[in-house]
C-alpha cells in the first residue's frame, strides 16, 4: 500500500499540471468542485472500499484520524484523541458529499480556522518538508475509501 502510494505521488509531483494526469480520470486537488451540497462527485469516479478506508482511517502515516477523533467503531485501538468532534454517528449528521468535502479540505468545507488538515489539498502551510512538497496527504483513492467508511458510521 505504501509503495503504491509513493509511486503514485512521485509521478504526481513531476509538475503541478501532472497531478491531474497521474491517475487518469482522478480529479486533481485544484480541480475539486465544492458546491452547496459539498463535493458531490467521487474523486475517482468510483465508490470507495469500506475496508480499505477503515485501515487508512487509523493508519498513523495516512489518515491518522484517531489522533483527533473518537471513533467507537475502532475501539480495538486505544487512545482516541479529542481535538475534533467524535465521529460516532457522523453519517447521520453529514451526507456523503459533505463528508467528502470535509476530508478533502475542511478549511473550505467548515472554516478556515480549523486545525484539521486538508487531506486532498495543495493549499498547505509554509516550509513543507521536501518529502511532501506538492503532495496531498491522501490519494484520491484513499479519500474515497475513507469517505465510504465514514458513511457506515451510523448510530
Amino acid at each position, binding site marked *: 500500500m505504501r509503495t503504491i502510494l509513493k509511486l503514485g505521488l512521485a509521478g504526481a509531483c513531476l509538475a503541478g499540471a501532472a497531478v491531474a494526469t497521474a491517475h487518469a480520470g482522478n480529479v486533481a486537488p485544484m480541480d475539486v468542485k*465544492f*458546491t*452547496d*451540497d*459539498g463535493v458531490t462527485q467521487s474523486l475517482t469516479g468510483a465508490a470507495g472500499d469500506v475496508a480499505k478506508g477503515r485501515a487508512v482511517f487509523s493508519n498513523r502515516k495516512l489518515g491518522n484520524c*484517531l*489522533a*483527533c477523533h473518537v471513533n467507537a467503531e475502532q475501539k480495538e485501538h*486505544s*487512545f*482516541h*484523541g*479529542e*481535538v*475534533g*468532534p467524535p465521529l460516532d454517528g457522523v453519517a447521520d449528521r*453529514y451526507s456523503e458529499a*459533505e463528508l467528502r*468535502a470535509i476530508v478533502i479540505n475542511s*478549511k*473550505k*468545507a*467548515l*472554516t*478556515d*480556522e*480549523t*486545525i484539521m*488538515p*486538508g487531506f486532498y489539498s495543495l*493549499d*498547505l*502551510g*509554509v*516550509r*513543507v*518538508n*521536501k*518529502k*511532501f512538497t506538492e*503532495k496531498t*496527504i491522501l490519494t484520491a483513492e484513499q479519500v474515497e475509501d475513507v469517505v465510504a467508511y465514514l458513511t457506515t458510521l451510523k448510530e
Partner: protein
Amino acid sequence: MNSTTFKWAGLLTAASVFAAGAAIAEPDNNTLVIEGQEMVTDVAAPEGSPLSRVYSGWRFRSPETQAFEMDDFENPAFPAVELGEALWNTVEGEAGKSCATCHEDASETMKGVRASMPKWNEKRGKPHTLETQINACRTDNMKAEAWKWEAPNMLAMTAYVGLQSRGMPVNVQTDGPMQSWTDKGKELYYTRVGQLDMSCANCHEDNYGKMIRADHLSQGQINGFPTYRLKWGGLGSIHRRFSGCMKNIRATPYKRGSDEFIALELYLASRGAGLSVETPAVRN
C-alpha cells in the same frame, strides 16, 4: 478563502468551537514542590496574552512523570547537572580560565540568568540565548572552542546554569530592542507550516488540555528547559523541541540557533511570564 458557500454552513458554529479559542483547559490540580520549594505552575496570563491562565507543562503530565521532577534524586537530568558543575570548574582554552575563574560561585552569580533569557546583547546586535551566551564566554573570554547547540556538554552547562534560577519567575524583556524579535516570534507562532498546515497556536493555544491520541496537549511552555524527555532518554534544548514539533507537522524545521528559533523562544518565554523556572524539568 471562501468557506461559507455551503448550505450546511449552519454547522460552522459548532465547527468553530473546535477550531478556535474555546479550549477546555484541563490541567490537573497537583502542586509541584521540589526539594521543599513550591513552584508556580499556574499563574494569571501576562497583559495582552490570549490566554487567561498560564500553566506549566508539568500540570499536563501523568503522576508518574510528574514524580520524577519532584525529587532531585529521581530526576534523571541530575547526572548531567553534575557534569555541568564539573565543567564549570574546568579550565579550558588558551586563556587558562574556567567559568568559575570569572563567575566564581554559580549559585550566587548565575541566579536569575535562565529566567531572563533570551536577553538583548548590544555587542551581538541580537538576543543571546543561554547557549549563545555560554559560547560567547567560551570563545571570547576563555579562548576555548564553542560547543555545538545540542552537545552533551552544552546541555549539561545550560542545565547547571538554569538550575540556579529554579523557582524564579520567567521574566524576559520584550520592549526596546527586543520588540521586533518578540513580534517576529509571535508571527512564527501563528504561521501554519508543513503539509499538515498547522501553527503552534492550533494545538497549544486552541486545544491545550485535550488529548491528541495518547498525548495530553500542553500550552507548550518552555520554563523547564533544557528538559529531560523520557522519549529522548536525555536532555534536549528548546530548539530541539521546536524542531520535533515542526517535523511532526511535516515541515522543514529552522536550524537550532537560527534567528527564527531565537525569536520564537523569546515570544514563548514572554507567554509564560510568571511561571517558575523548572530547569531541568522532566517530561514524557
